[in-house]
Structure formats: C-alpha cells, structure tokens
C-alpha cells in the first residue's frame, strides 16, 4: 500500500504551511521532498509520523506496521549507549516489553547495525560517534521494528560529501531490504539523484512539481529549473519562503 496523502492542510498562526498537498508513495519506492526552507517539508513529515495534527486531509500508511522516522540531527538518546538506543522500542514499548530475551535483543541489534554498515559499537555512547555514524545508528533504531514506512528528515545535513554518499547508499539499501515506502526531505541534489525514484517540489505549502527524478532533473518546469539552478530569478520568491 505504501503512503497515500490526500488534501493535507496545516496552518500555523494564519499561515498555510501545507495547502491541499496530495501524493502517494508505493512500497519499495522513495519520494524526495524538496523546497526552500519554510516551505512545509518537515511539517509534512511530522504530520505523517503523528508528531503534529493536520488541520485537514487524510493520510494512509501500510496497516499493522510502524511509521519510522530519522531526524536531522539523529536525535539519539544521549543517556543510553548504542545498544539501548537501537533496542529502545523493543525494551520500552508496551507490546514488546518482555517479548525478547537479552540474547535475542543482542542478535537483532547486531543485525540492524550490520544493515547500516556498523559493528562492535554497541557499548559506545552517541557522543563518542561521528555525525555520519550517529545518523546510521539513527537509521538502525528506526528500522528495528521492521517498518514499512520510513521518513528521513534531511539525512545528509551536516555531513561531508563522502559520508553523504554512504548515507544515500544506505537509504537505497534499507528501502530494498524492507520493501518500504520512503520519503526523504532533503536540500541536497545528490540525495535526489542517488536515492529517490520520484520527487515533489513544495513552494509556500503547495506542490509545484510532482514527477520522476529524471523529469525533475530535466528542469523543464520553471520551478524545478529555478531550484536546480539555485537561481534567484524565477517563479519562486525567496524572500517569502525564508
């Protein structure tokens, strides 16, 4: 089923941050969400992940499966080591409490860490890890319950180009492993080209482009052209967005 978003509306202090936004993402597909700062990208993710309520519209995700989300700055629990960060939902969620033995948890955490290319760091604390490693631990924590929907909020923000490439590869890998419907909010063109199948461009809460990554990169649409060229001239007024 993936993710279906219909006519989503969200208003903050009389400003429409999302204005009748509709799209769908199939299982095994990644949608890139791009736009200027303040265009409503992160708000969209927060609504899909139930962190915010929408003022109108509807969202449907695959039944019986979690919606996972990774955060811009990883949001790892700094008082817990990597093992307890990843095992956190299995240890603390009501339906999982007591379901797994210590050995089973160790095995699951090891598997998830291997999926993001990390091993032997279970005892380390987040402050002992690099930014890229923190992001990958965040990915491992997000997928520990095998979700069918994964949301990434600026997964490559603050990383060097090589680490960004690594992260983009893991986004593709996790999508394939879990056959999940993924949404990636990003500012980085490399993330769009390497990790996304389709793209939507948001401007002032509205979708001004929706199509495949190839169509997005061709830049026939004046909005996508302006975005890709990082130009001040075009239909999008920068002042109103930032």
């Amino acid at each position, binding site marked *: 089923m993936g993710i279906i978003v219909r006519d989503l509306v969200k208003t903050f202090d009389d400003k429409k941050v999302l204005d009748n936004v509709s799209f769908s993402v199939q299982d095994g597909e990644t949608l890139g969400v791009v736009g200027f700062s303040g265009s409503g990208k992160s708000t969209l993710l927060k609504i899909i992940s139930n962190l915010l309520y929408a003022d109108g519209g509807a969202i449907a995700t695959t039944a019986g499966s979690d919606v996972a*989300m990774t955060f*811009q700055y990883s*949001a*790892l*629990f700094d008082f817990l080591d990597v093992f307890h960060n990843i095992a956190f939902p299995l240890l*603390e*969620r*009501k339906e999982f409490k007591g379901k797994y033995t210590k050995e089973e948890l160790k095995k699951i955490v090891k598997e998830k860490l291997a999926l993001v290319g990390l091993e032997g760091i279970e005892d380390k604390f987040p402050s002992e890890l690099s930014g890229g490693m923190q992001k990958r631990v965040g990915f491992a*924590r997000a997928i520990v319950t095998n979700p069918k929907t994964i949301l990434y909020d600026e997964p490559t923000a603050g990383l060097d180009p090589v680490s960004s490439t690594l992260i983009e590869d893991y986004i593709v890998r996790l999508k394939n492993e879990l056959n999940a419907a993924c949404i990636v909010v990003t500012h980085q063109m490399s993330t769009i080209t390497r990790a996304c199948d389709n793209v939507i461009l948001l401007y002032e809460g509205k979708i001004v482009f929706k199509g495949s990554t190839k169509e997005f990169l061709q830049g026939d649409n004046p909005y996508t052209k302006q975005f890709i060229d990082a130009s001040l001239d075009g239909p999008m007024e920068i002042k109103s967005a930032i």
Partner: protein
Amino acid sequence: MIDIKGTITYSLVRNLFLGTKDFLIMVGNIGKDFVNVAKYIFLLRFNLKAVIEQSSRFAVDSLPITLTIVSMTSIIIAIQIAPELAKQGAEGYIGMLSGIVMIRELACIMAGFAIISMIGSSFASELASMAVGEQISAMKVLKVDPIEYLIVPRFLSGVIMMPFVFILSSFAGLICAGIVSKMTAGLSLLNYINSLWQGLYVRDILIAMLKASFFGGTIALISCSCGYSTRGGAKEVGIATTMAVVWSFLAIAVWDYVFAVIFYL
C-alpha cells in the same frame, strides 16, 4: 491621530496579557501532564528500575546541599534565639522552640528550596534539552510515551524521597541547634533533648512528611513539565529552567500556606 501601539500603557497591557496567556498555558500543560502521570501510576505502568535510579538521584545527590542549607539555617536561628531565651531564664524552651520551628516549617521549606535548585533545575534543563534536540519527538515516533518513560519515574521519586530528605534534614538541623545552644547559651545537650521532646509531636512529624511528599511531587512535576513543553533552542532551555525554578518556589510556598491553614489554623 494618536498611535496607541507606541504608548507605555499599551505596552504594559500587552505584556500583562501575554504574561497571563503564558501562565495559563503553563498551568494547562502542568495539569495535563499531572492527569497523564496519575493515569500511569494508577495503572501501575512505570519502570521500577527507573524510579529507583531517579530516587537515588533525588535524595542522595541532593543530600549534601540539603543538609548544609538546613543545618546552617538552624545554626543561625539558634545563634539568634538561644542567648536571648537564656537571658530571660527560658533556656528550657530552646529545644522545644527549635523542634517546633524545624519540624513544622523550616526543614521542609528549606529542603524544598535546596531540591528545587539542585534537582528541579536539572530535571527541567535535561528534559528541555531532550525536547529541543528532538529526542522526545523520537520517543513519540518510536511509540514510547515520554510521560511514562521520563516524567512518571521523576514524579514518583519526588513523592517518595522528599519525606526522607525532610527527616534527615530535620535531624541534622536539630543536632546543630543543640550544639549551638550549648555553645551560646550553655544549655546541656541532655536538657536540650528533654526540652525538644516537649515540642515534638507525632502528628506534626506526619503532617510535615505529608507536606514534604507534596513538595517533592510538585517540584518534580513542575520541573519536568516546564522542560517537556520547551520548543526552540538553547535560549528556551534557559527560560524553561528559570520558569521551573520560579514556579516551583511559588508552588511550594502556596502548598505551605495550604497545609498551615488546614492543619494549624
């Protein structure tokens, strides 16, 4: 035409309105958090290990500063009253007065102030940092209720441990007052203790323990709630911590008044 927005009156009224609005929002948040905390406690949904960890932090970590503050205050009061009472030939009342003052009022309120400064501020800044760092959002996405995981153990630690902090503080304060009375008024420790018994009632001790428990729960709840509802960045973490301290001080002063009216008026 007069520009109303530029006037001092407009500015005062506006600030008063915004201040009242913020206050009501905060009271609403605390009330909502309390209802959720009570629900989890009623359903026995809390992590005992976390409660023990937080209790250790609440009582053990704060004990040195709490004992110091309560002892110093009792020493100062003993320095002030013991020689005066001795001059009037009322040495026999020194222990009794110390007991009444310490048990009914001083130990509890001073320990409360120490706990607010040490533990309340730390609860507030810790949760505020987690909120602005999206750790609380991450917890919600992982379907673990932050109220159950973060606030309930802290609230219970306050309710359970504050009476013990009060008892230890009172004990330390009364010992110090006895020593000072001997040094400044020449009252023997035996006479001090005999006088002390005249002013100690089980009822007073139980009321003070109940009051301490209310203080502990209130400090933990207000501090956690202020931290938990923080949005923004480093500046807001500071504001949340300040708010937690200020409102906790005010709240325990109000509780103190309520207890005095109910039990001693």
